[in-house]
């Protein structure tokens, strides 16, 4: 009985988190279109509902009812597996993200503000987020199209060059909090914004993290895998209908995920920036910070043009990697000196 109740609670939690994340994904596309169009002196979607508010739902319905085409020369199994291989890692990472501070108690049942708090949280997310690249590579390969293959290859190269600095930039917060658990990491940043790791580790690892995160999620200015002006749509050129929407969902879910990790690792998670602001619920702080990072993503997309591919690689290997290595060294030495 006890076990059944706990299982039910966990299932409900998972369903709730998935629901909220997917809703956010849907409306992130809307927000992106609106913010982009405002920055370009346009109006964006205006037709469906007041100010186009129902546009994501209309888009979803349209994609759902579209014909699902598998190209003649495609490898059917890999072609249909790769959208799932992209989407699942993007959604699975949310399992360890702590959204708030306090657990909700209903009778004996405790509802935590995270699905699970495993003690290798960050490692888990890093591992799964790199799995997403397999889906992209395989999808590009299985499509039997030169554009898709080029997109997939670019994605693989990009992931290799940006995975390393991404992991190394997160070493700073891990060293300071002495934990890989997202919950412990958030608790270690309590007290005010000067305790957040964006200040404590100098902003350099945070900037490296943001750049790498953008590259990881294939967003502008690093959207070379799907560069529409060169590669049609890159790795998902041949996809249509539901499979296409899976890639789309994965991209936006990944955006939210990396923003969540950025907030937890560098911006203090659900901590308020000042002690006197703690009356505002932690979840509000968490969401505000995530929304800010998401806005920054969109903002950057409206501003910066796409990089050339060799520039992208050179920037990753010649600047980001050495810089993040140096920062790891500096942070660990500083930590050693300060504790001894």
């Amino acid at each position: 009985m006890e076990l059944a109740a706990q299982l039910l609670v966990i299932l409900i939690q998972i369903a709730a988190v998935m629901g909220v994340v997917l809703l956010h994904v849907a409306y992130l596309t809307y927000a992106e279109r609106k913010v982009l169009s405002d920055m370009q002196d346009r109006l964006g979607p205006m037709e469906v509902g007041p100010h186009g508010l129902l546009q994501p739902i209309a888009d979803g319905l349209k994609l759902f009812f579209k014909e699902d085409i598998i190209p003649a020369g495609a490898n059917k199994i890999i072609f249909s597996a790769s959208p799932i291989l992209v989407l699942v890692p993007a959604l699975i990472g949310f399992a360890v993200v702590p959204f708030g501070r306090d657990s909700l108690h209903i009778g004996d049942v405790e509802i935590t503000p995270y699905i699970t708090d495993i003690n290798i949280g960050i490692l888990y997310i890093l591992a799964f987020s790199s799995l997403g690249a397999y889906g992209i590579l395989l999808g590009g390969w299985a499509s039997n199209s030169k554009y898709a293959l080029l997109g997939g290859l670019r994605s693989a190269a990009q992931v290799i060059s940006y995975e390393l600095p991404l992991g190394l930039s997160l070493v700073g917060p891990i060293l300071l909090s002495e934990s890989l658990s997202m919950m412990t990491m958030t608790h270690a940043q309590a007290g005010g914004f000067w305790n957040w790791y964006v200040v404590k580790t100098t902003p350099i690892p945070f900037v490296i993290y943001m750049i790498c995160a953008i590259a990881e999620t294939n967003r502008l200015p690093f959207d070379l895998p799907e560069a529409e002006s060169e590669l049609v749509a890159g790795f998902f050129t041949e996809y249509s209908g539901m499979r296409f929407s899976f890639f789309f969902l994965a991209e936006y879910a990944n955006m939210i995920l990396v923003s969540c990790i950025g907030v937890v690792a560098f911006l203090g998670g659900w901590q308020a920036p000042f002690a006197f602001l703690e009356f505002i619920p932690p979840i509000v702080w968490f969401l505000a910070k995530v929304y800010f990072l998401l806005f920054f993503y969109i903002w950057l997309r409206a501003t910066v043009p796409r990089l050339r591919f060799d520039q992208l690689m050179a920037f990753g290997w010649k600047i980001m990697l050495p810089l993040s290595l140096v920062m790891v060294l500096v942070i660990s030495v500083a930590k050693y000196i300060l504790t001894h």
Partner: protein
Amino acid sequence: MKLKQSLFKTIIFSEILKGLQLTFKHLLKGKVITQQYPHQKPTLPDGYRGVIVHLRYDDGAEICVGCSLCEAACPSHCITVESAEREDFPQKRYAKRYILDVTKCVFCGFCVQACPVDALASSKEYEMATTDKRTLMMDKEAMLTLGDQYFPIRQKRPQYSEDRFSLFKQMKEVGFPLAKKGSS
């Protein structure tokens, strides 16, 4: 010193920050260039050349005299005029049939310029999308109603004097007076 400055600028991504500032300014300005077309229509300039229409005099009579000069001027051969003599005014002609093929028309306005009696005009009608192509073969009646819609102020009919009318009457009865040699 200069090198140091440029290095510092590179390190803090000064160029990108400048760009971000610009886009954010546009976000705050909230200026919109887009027109929500079906809901909000553009104000067209006066010289706009839409569908060609026929005009009427202020007493409701059509102006066209069926001279076919528009047909001759039309570069895409979209105008067909079939003219005939009027019953009430002998030697006066009118367009018995006038067909404008809007599917061929290039809206150049040459016909309007060619018309000697100003019977044609460019309206501001441009929403001609239809599911039935036959509605785009406009006859004289359709063009006249469209002309009424777009040009409510009509030009005055030139007034003929009484002896002009009597001449017409005479012609109707005995035919056109042929010029004779020696007569004044």
